[in-house]
């Protein structure tokens, strides 16, 4: 099955593409989806979120990379990128969202050609832009999520996500596999199953409150954040019975690391986070946490549709493409894995 077919079959109307590292092959994934949309006659909306370090060249103020878009594509991009487009663009509407490159405009490509895309700066603004592009008739909206903090949260505002990984993700095959499996595991964290807890945790996350929920009821911890206060958080917890700890901010290595000194607590705990992009935990601590019975659930789960792999790292390291893709496909099953340099269909297991 080709990437676009996989997306269409999932029913997702908006898809973000995020990479595990620079040169993981994100742009190739974006270009492939665009090309397949042309072939399938799908009207596409396109934008980008966040900056990949040199997404905007500091000296030239040019947005990177340039993307070839077919006629009819709708873009949400900043005003300053428009004069540099090689395709004729029809300006459809303004958005009032201001970026370093001017106000974000909704435009339609009246000719095919290369364009620069630099979308809005915040998740809320991007959510509105996605809706606006869908309102303009886009059957699929593609969001290019950069590696920075905002860009990597792109999966939380799209229906589905394509993850790009590759040789750049680690120094050797083992590390690449561990890193890719770990990111997949975090991004696929399950939703909160208990509806009552979901409501309580949803309100707490809105209000930025740390909550403990157990059979005795709901308690708010007298702390503003769990970051830097792991020991203080733990002092409020008791291993007598299963309980949930709602953390509206980031869940970090230091919190789980501190918890691991209290295995009896870990056994009883269920951490609740707004979404997987709030979980910043390394693979080692994560595995230990799972091993001792800890659980993390999220209010807004993410749907990973596919993983693309690039067996080559620009620093010179590269792997035999077929074997590399197969290793990752086995590790990440049942997710379909694509090596877009090898072919357009998923790597068969």
């Amino acid at each position: 099955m080709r990437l676009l077919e996989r997306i269409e079959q999932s029913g997702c109307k908006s898809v973000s593409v995020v990479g595990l590292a620079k040169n993981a092959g994100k742009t190739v994934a974006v270009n492939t989806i665009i090309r397949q949309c042309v072939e399938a006659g799908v009207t596409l909306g396109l934008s980008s979120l966040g900056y990949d370090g040199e997404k905007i060249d500091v000296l030239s103020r040019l947005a990177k990379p340039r993307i070839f878009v077919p006629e009819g594509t709708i873009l949400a991009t900043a005003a300053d990128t428009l004069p540099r487009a090689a395709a004729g663009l029809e300006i459809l509407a303004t958005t009032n969202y201001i970026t370093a490159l001017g106000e974000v405009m909704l435009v339609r490509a009246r000719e095919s050609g290369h364009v620069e895309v630099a979308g809005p700066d915040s998740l809320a603004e991007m959510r509105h832009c996605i809706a606006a592009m869908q309102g303009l008739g886009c059957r699929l909206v593609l969001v290019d999520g950069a590696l920075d903090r905002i860009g990597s949260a792109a999966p939380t505002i799209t229906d589905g996500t394509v993850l790009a990984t590759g040789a750049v993700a680690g120094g050797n095959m083992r590390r690449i596999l561990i890193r890719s499996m770990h990111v997949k595991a975090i991004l696929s964290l399950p939703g909160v199953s208990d509806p009552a807890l979901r409501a309580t945790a949803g309100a707490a996350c809105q209000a930025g409150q740390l909550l403990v929920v157990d059979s005795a009821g709901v308690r708010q911890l007298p702390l503003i954040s769990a970051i830097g206060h792991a020991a203080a958080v733990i002092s409020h917890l008791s291993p007598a019975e299963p309980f949930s700890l709602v953390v509206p901010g980031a869940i970090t290595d230091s919190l789980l690391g501190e918890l691991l000194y209290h295995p009896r607590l870990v056994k009883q705990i269920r951490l609740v986070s707004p979404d997987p992009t709030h979980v910043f935990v390394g693979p080692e601590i994560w595995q230990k946490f799972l091993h001792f019975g800890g659980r993390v659930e999220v209010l807004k789960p993410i749907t990973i549709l596919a993983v693309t792999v690039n067996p080559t790292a620009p620093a010179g390291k590269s792997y035999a493409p077929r074997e590399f893709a197969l290793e990752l496909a086995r590790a990440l099953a049942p997710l379909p894995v694509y090596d877009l340099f090898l072919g357009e269909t998923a790597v068969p297991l």
Partner: protein
Amino acid sequence: MSDAGLMLGIEYFLACLAPTSPYGQAQAKGLRPFKPGQEGDLKEELASLEQAISLLATHLSEIIKIRHYLAQLPDWREPLHEVTAGGVLSDVELFSLKQNLYFFARIKELQATLAPRLPVKYEPADFHTLLALLDPDNSGSPSFYLSDSYSLRLAEYRDKIRAQQRAANRQSEIQKERAAKLVGLSFNPAGEIAAPRHDRSLQNRIEGTNLFIQSRETYTERYYQLKPTPQEITLAQELDRLLKHEQAEEERVRHKLSLSVKVEAERLRQTIASLGRLDLLLSKALLARDWRCVRPELIERDAPAEFVMDKARHPEVEASLRKQGKAFTPVSISLQTGVAVVTGANMGGKTVTLRTVGLLASLVAYGMFVPASFCRTCLFTHITILTGEYSVFVTGLSRFGHEIAALCRALPSAQTRALLLVDELASSTNPAEGSALAQAVAEHLARSASVCLLTTHYDRMAFLKDVAHWQVVGLSNVPSVVLAQALADSPAASQRDLAELMDYTLTPTEPTRHLPREALRVAAHLGLPASILARAAELLHR
């Protein structure tokens, strides 16, 4: 103006205005009070405002729509400036111009349905021709595109580019297909074929075709791309040339359009000003309705100065009281040229009276209706309020030092027609000198052409001749039994009772030797220990 504006509540008024368009916001920012001599202009402004307020009652849905359209206007002052200076407009600027023109037309249509119609200075001009120029295909859509219709040459280049792109794509597809068949490999999405590095014979076969060049190499594979054929190179060069022509032609079209816009620049500027005025007028009308305002009566410049208000309210104080569940007691006062002195209990609302007088006089000067049941006033050269609330720590002057410095700046010359409001004049020094100073200042002001309102606790001031005297009724009418009852409650409750028992009404009085003594009672209500109060009473009667 800022400190006084804050104290009076003018800043609050400006914040409540909330015009919706960038043009209205710019006008609100540049709002200047009317000065004596501009009574005619002010009357015209007040008449338009009255008309707008009556339109709120009869044509509310139209007014709401007009406000909605005003809110959609993108700010076009900067591009207008550029185009006047001979600049070339970008696509985004042309697009936002088209949006402006589109909404100008909508607003004009709606204004035509209003009866009575607002004066012409609040209406946009007609930009039918310019709008048609920005919509060459007559699509009626608010989007903007440098369409083929702008120039035959543009259309021609674009056709050629499309044809060229198709030809180039076809060429490369044919070439790829041929090459792939020749070496028995398929191309990846990046347009490469890969050969394992150990497979020398395959590499030789690929290189032998003379169709490929090596593009990159990894530890395991060697990647090749198709060499562009001379034909493809020519096509690409031709395409490049056409794209450059297209861009140049587009720039020519933008230039031409910019010239057409430049011709209309003055009319655009006028319309931007008109709509700024309209936006501000409608904002004032809505606020006047919310604040239950009346049209003030204006005294001509040659008549003696006067300020009269009946049942006036201070909206900022009123709003903050409402939040605490309390109501504002409207104040009435009538002031003529010279000095009026307000005396009465602490917590009796004297400062609020000063602020309300100042606010109403300022609102009139800003061409606004006033929150009162009646108001008659002249225009003042300036309005000053001195309340003793100074940022002592910043400047290093003492409270007294500040007050005197501010008073020096504010003292009007004999002929100026100013409004001067002073709270507790010279109260921050010793009572003997303070009251002497206060009396001297009052006597000086009594001879000026200004209207001055002073509050004081000095007995000496209450006895002054040639000044008007006003007194807060305060607690004087409350039977002592009721007061004692209220005192028995907790301090918080008794403070609340105090506000309920206090009569904030101002009454004109005759000069008197002794002011009513209510400070101790008020202090008791605020929770000062009884022992201290008893000792104070003892000292007072000694």
